[in-house]
């Protein structure tokens, strides 16, 4: 199956005053789960909407299997299933009916439908609520229903905008497992998420957007191996420490008055632990944690922090 190709996509709003995304080019391949990450307003949802054909870019192209999704939005809608950021419309309709509606609208045959519906309901462990109307479902169950509506008759390209928000930890895992199965069966899977732990664990590749620019595009395996060359020691102390209190030649970042983050190479770990032991003996340390560098820390380093 073809790749989904995005070339030089640019979109501005308010007569060019707000740049949603700027000259983004990338490709999405079947069999790969790609996570789209970035701050709020970084341009992730706009990019999904441009792929879907709902938002028209100022310039650039989105092509798949010889079709331009910008010129042929109806083809885009046939090729894409999209889970929106907001809950799908469920009021007055049971969970099963909502999923069945999308299956019917996607043109599935009556014979296939029941088994397909049951398969999704069982996979997400939501069969108990199948006959409950949308307004009576919790936020997490509404999110799961919206997810099920997207995957019940899956199109070749699947777009998900924050699918695991509000969902309990057990079913979050089920969602990612389901995405993995879809990718394995040849679908292009693109997931917008703020949950970097899940990206680290389940996505094959991640794109990092910042102020409409694509600033990182790499495999999560590569990112993991790169990150293993660095470690992070996080500390909470009883009193504020000065730069002179720390061993020389290590980089310290103060997160708050009594919280510190120290990036260590492998060779710095042993001296740092010895220093830490001394400070523990002096009863200056409240808590500490030593772990390999996380995507979370890298994300903050690549973007401009809280802005």
């Amino acid at each position, binding site marked *: 199956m073809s790749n989904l190709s995005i070339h030089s996509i640019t979109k501005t709003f308010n007569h060019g005053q707000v740049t949603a995304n700027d000259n983004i080019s990338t490709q999405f391949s079947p069999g790969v789960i790609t996570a789209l990450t970035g701050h709020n307003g970084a341009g992730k949802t706009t990019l999904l909407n441009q792929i879907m054909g709902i938002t028209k870019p100022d310039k650039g192209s989105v092509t798949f299997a010889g079709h331009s999704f910008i010129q042929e939005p109806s083809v885009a*809608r046939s090729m894409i299933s999209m889970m*929106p950021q*907001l809950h799908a419309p469920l009021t*007055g309709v049971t969970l099963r009916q909502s999923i069945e509606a999308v299956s*019917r*609208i*996607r043109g599935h045959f009556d014979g296939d439908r029941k088994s397909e519906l049951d398969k999704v309901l069982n996979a997400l462990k939501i069969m108990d609520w199948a006959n409950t109307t949308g307004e009576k479902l919790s936020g997490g169950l509404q999110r799961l229903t919206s997810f099920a509506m997207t995957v019940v008759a899956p199109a070749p390209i699947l777009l998900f905008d924050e699918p695991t928000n509000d969902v309990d930890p057990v079913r979050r895992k089920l969602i990612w497992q389901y995405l993995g199965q879809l990718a394995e*069966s040849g679908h292009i899977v693109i997931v917008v998420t703020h949950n970097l732990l899940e990206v680290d664990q389940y996505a094959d590749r991640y794109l990092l957007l910042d102020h409409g620019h694509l600033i990182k595009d790499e495999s999560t395996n590569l990112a993991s191996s790169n990150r293993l060359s660095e470690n992070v020691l996080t500390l909470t102390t009883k009193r504020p420490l000065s730069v002179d209190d720390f061993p020389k030649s290590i980089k310290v970042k103060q997160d708050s008055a009594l919280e510190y983050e120290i990036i260590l190479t492998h060779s710095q770990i042993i001296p740092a632990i010895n220093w830490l032991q001394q400070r523990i003996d002096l009863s200056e340390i409240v808590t500490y944690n030593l772990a390999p560098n996380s995507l979370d820390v890298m994300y903050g380093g690549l973007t401009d922090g809280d802005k």
Partner: protein
Amino acid sequence: MEINSEQIVDHSLKTKTRKFGGLVWWSLVRHKVLLPTFSVTQAVLALAIVYGLALLLPNMTHQDSLYLSSGAITIGIIAVGCVLAAQIIGTAKQDGIVAYQKTLPVDRTSIILADVIIWSLASLPGVIMSCLAAVIRFKIHLYISPLSIVIILLAQITMILIGFTLAYWLSANVMALATQVIMIGGLLFSPITYPASRIPDWLASVYNWLPFVPTSDLIRATLFHSGTVSFFNIIVLILWALIAFTLSLSALTKRG
């Protein structure tokens, strides 16, 4: 599993029909709770016009009863199309249903047609109740014919499309105001429940170009055989339907 993209872009009539059926089914299950409520509302409205407004006329003539009977049907159709449909679609817009529909693999015309079918069904009980009330209260004979049925359908579709246009293009507050103006104007000020000769000529001319009075005149001419069927009125209704359909379609096809 091999995914064949060309199979997914299937434009066969069978697939299109199945998808359209799915859209109608989804619209029906979403509105199934509302439809009985609308039937009761329309029944009350029909009785209020036929029995209530008749109390304002101590010396009821045959012409008065014809106007009240055709007016009840017309106002029922206006209420469902321009008010209830507009308000429900407006709520759907706020709830994200309209935005969600835009992502589905169906053409925009199908979305409009599916809702027109559901809302036409929703306004049928009102038409039937108005006819029954008129027959019982005034002992009027109904001339049910293919033409009168076509006129009622045309009126329903036109009003529903106007309601959709209001909902798609106006903000929630402005839409609520517009629907109230239409309802109050229709009920009190437009020559739907009384002859146009009672209002100034210039105002009657304005009403002739709006869809409401032509609807009333056509229903009176076809269903009650009072007056002649005016082609001008039919053209006015068709024009309003076409304009409203085009505006609704452009709202749904508009891209950000």
